[in-house]
């Protein structure tokens, strides 16, 4: 088989899998709506309940918070991927796919691209709401391009990490449990509050973890501040996370000792 034909088949397989996952999302409207609606609610809670007492140095707390809510939104949405991938593995359909002559990574690209679409919708809703409640940004057109690129990289890589974990998880429940832990670790970052009031040990973690780097990059771009090292650190972290997740996923799925 020549390369062009191979590539065509690969693209077609991915297309089939993306459609499959979009149908899943539509048929599973409840869980889709929960993951899409939860982050805006969290945003409102933070702004109107905690926001009054949080001093972050910006004129409006929402200006500070906005990037953090994007991070949280992506983290929440990953639980759908976790459960979806794990269900594929624990219900038997994966065995049918694995005994077919198809590129196995297409199965997971399907999950990842569907997640990308879900996330973009959800982030657009958050953005709309944020502007309504007074979010102010000084981002230029170029900044917006960078913001979009960084967010897409983050969603893509983050979702692949979840694909890997869900393949390793024994049940959909434990896959979804892991997503809760990750959502929780995203709180130990600069997403909601500046890290300098945290205890020293926690602060070291908070300031050096990948959520903080991506969050700081986005926030600086929104507020028109210097981006500094955070952008390059965020890119390195999330590209490495993607590569590792992709390779591990390939090894697991092509291993003929999955069970």
């Amino acid at each position, binding site marked *: 088989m020549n390369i062009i034909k191979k590539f065509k088949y690969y693209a077609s397989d991915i297309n089939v899998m993306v459609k499959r996952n979009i149908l899943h999302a539509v048929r599973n409207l409840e869980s889709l709506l929960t993951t899409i609606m939860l982050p805006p609610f969290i945003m409102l809670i933070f702004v109107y309940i905690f926001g009054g007492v949080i001093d972050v140095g910006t004129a409006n707390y929402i200006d500070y918070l906005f990037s953090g809510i994007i991070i949280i939104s992506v983290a929440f949405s990953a639980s759908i991927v976790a459960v979806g991938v794990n269900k594929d593995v624990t219900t038997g359909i994966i*065995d*049918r796919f694995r005994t*077919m002559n198809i590129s196995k990574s297409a199965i997971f690209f399907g999950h990842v691209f569907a997640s990308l679409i879900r996330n973009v919708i959800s982030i657009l809703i958050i953005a709309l709401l944020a502007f309504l409640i007074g979010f102010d940004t000084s981002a230029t057109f170029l900044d917006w391009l960078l913001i979009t690129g960084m967010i897409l990289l983050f969603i893509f890589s983050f979702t692949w990490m979840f694909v890997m974990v869900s393949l390793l998880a024994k049940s959909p429940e434990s896959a979804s449990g892991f997503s809760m832990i990750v959502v929780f670790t995203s709180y130990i970052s600069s997403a909601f509050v500046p890290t300098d009031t945290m205890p020293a040990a926690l602060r070291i973690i908070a300031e050096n973890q990948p959520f903080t780097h991506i969050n700081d990059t986005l926030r600086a771009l929104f507020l028109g501040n210097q981006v500094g090292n955070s952008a390059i650190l965020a890119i390195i972290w999330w590209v490495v996370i993607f590569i590792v997740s992709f390779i591990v996923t390939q090894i697991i799925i092509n291993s*003929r000792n999955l069970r």
Partner: protein
Amino acid sequence: MALTKGNEAAIKVRDLTKSYKSLKVLKGISFNVKRGSIFALLGSNGAGKTTAINILSTLLIPNSGSAEIEGFDVVKYPNNVRSKISLTGQYSTVDELLTTRENLTMIGNLLHLSDVKPQVIDLLTRFDLLEDADRPVSTFSGGMKRRLDIAMSLLGNPSVIFLDEPTTGLDPKSRISTWEMIKELASVGITIFLTTQYLEEAEYLADKIAILHDGKIVIEGSVAEIKQIIPTVFVILNLNNKTDTYKALNIFSNKNAQVIEGTNNVKVESNGTIPDISDILKKIEMNNIAADSFEQKKPTLESVFLKIVNNEVE
């Protein structure tokens, strides 16, 4: 690696072993499956049936031994094997959130078939699923899911189909319609490898049966050959007193007569034919045994194993 047609075996298995850590699941099994025939691997839970089917369908790698599907080694040429086979797993290998039509279309597209739509409609019609084509599979009964599962296996014209316990969990009516479906597949020349826990299923469907017990094939042969070795039915004689019980045990000692524990009743092997059963009843009358009634019972798989293992010891 040449593909040989004709009477050649579609599946060749030699000394296959598989262990999970220290647990030996397959302890060296060998068999051939003739092209276009139905082969049943019969065994109880945990006998190693699914492990065998997973190795043959390229999901698992054996520890030793070899397996070939249509001339291709499953370890060395998994992709060639995959283009020849399809697998219907023990737990239904369908997408529950999709409709019947979407499931079939998805598999057709993944196989890169050029005419997915007409093939899907043909299968929907053949498998009597046209009315439910646009219902999500999650609303289906077990029998309908199985029907779709098998329909999906036919896309891409596989020459070998693996069915892992195709009727486990189905109601009697669905079981019979699944059997008919399987017979039909074999009639068009597809080689069928199925696993089952039910002796009667193997008897009804298979051209050849291999009984897998504790990781080994304890017996292999045609249905007729297997029937010679294992009783098809037991005749239970319901007796009133110990004297009659002893008499019956004596008369039917050549038929492996046994007392059913805690009763005076006696269990006698039979091949289930009318002459054989009437012979048993005649002997009861001739010997003045006062039997209240009698009943026929099918042997359990366990009793079959016991019988085979005992025969080997003798």
